[in-house]
């Protein structure tokens, strides 16, 4: 019997949960939401505000259940927001205020 390694939940090579799952080969065109998140990520990278490694680390820190529930670019915006807060580029108070104003 092969023991399951203590792998992190994003480290999916060979993961037993997926090994019998069929690939969804249908084309999914990126949405406006997807493209905007992607573009902001690129701008933050180009301006030296956030590296792609920080983005990934933030994605990996999303708890496992949520990680699998969120769409690809939902994970990105979550990680980007967490990174921007952590780095003090935006503050929690500012974000809360904008969210409240938009509610």
């Amino acid at each position, binding site marked *: 019997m092969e023991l399951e390694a203590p792998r992190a939940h*994003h*480290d*999916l*090579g*060979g*993961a037993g*949960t*997926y*090994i019998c*799952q*069929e*690939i*969804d*080969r*249908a*084309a*999914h065109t*990126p949405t406006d*939401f*997807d*493209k*905007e*998140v*992607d*573009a*902001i990520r*690129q*701008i*933050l*990278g*180009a*301006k030296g*505000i956030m590296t792609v490694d920080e983005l*990934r680390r933030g*994605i990996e820190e999303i708890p496992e259940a*949520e990680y*699998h529930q*969120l*769409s*690809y*670019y*939902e994970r990105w*915006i*979550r990680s*980007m*927001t*967490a990174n*921007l*807060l952590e780095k003090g*580029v*935006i503050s*929690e*108070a*500012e*974000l*809360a*205020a*904008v*969210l409240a104003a*938009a509610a």
Partner: protein
Amino acid sequence: MAGTVLRLEEVAGERLLRAVAALLAAKGIASPTEITEQIAMTDNASPAQGARMVARAWVDPQFRALMLSDGTRAAEMLGIPMRGAPPLGVLEDTPDLHHLIVCTLCSCYPRAVLGYPPFWYKSGAYRARAVRDPRGLLAEWGTVLDPGVRIRVVDSTADYRWMVLPLRPAETAKWNEDRLAALVRETDMIGVTLPRVAGD
């Protein structure tokens, strides 16, 4: 706002995006115009770019040699913008070796020459199975390799981005470069399919 505890997990992605975009615009970090321009630039990258490289490599041995030693420079020679993109590596299929690209840790993809990664490339099933059951995975695309062909699965874990230079189908011996470029699909350059002449 003292004592506010923001729970990001309770904010829907779209709402979070609108709020973050507003803050970044207010701070002069990313304006709506910059975002629109960035989207337009990203949309310009598509599998047609990678296909042009493959077609050129099939007709021009010198270009092929350059593409295999320095993919970034080869792309730039065809006018594909590579500034700011990770280095591009190109791996060549041979009659007895087939390459298949995956990123098991996230979704590293040669975006500069292929565009946005397709949905399936980012899926858990693809990431899990490519390294462990590559032949079963290829079968889902209807791809069956000739007997004796080995598979080399490339896990794109770090600073490079990888694409496959597939074998040129024998039936295309008399085709010109444009016609060859039109034949090559994104799936051929990731290695889940092989270039195929329609109707054969």
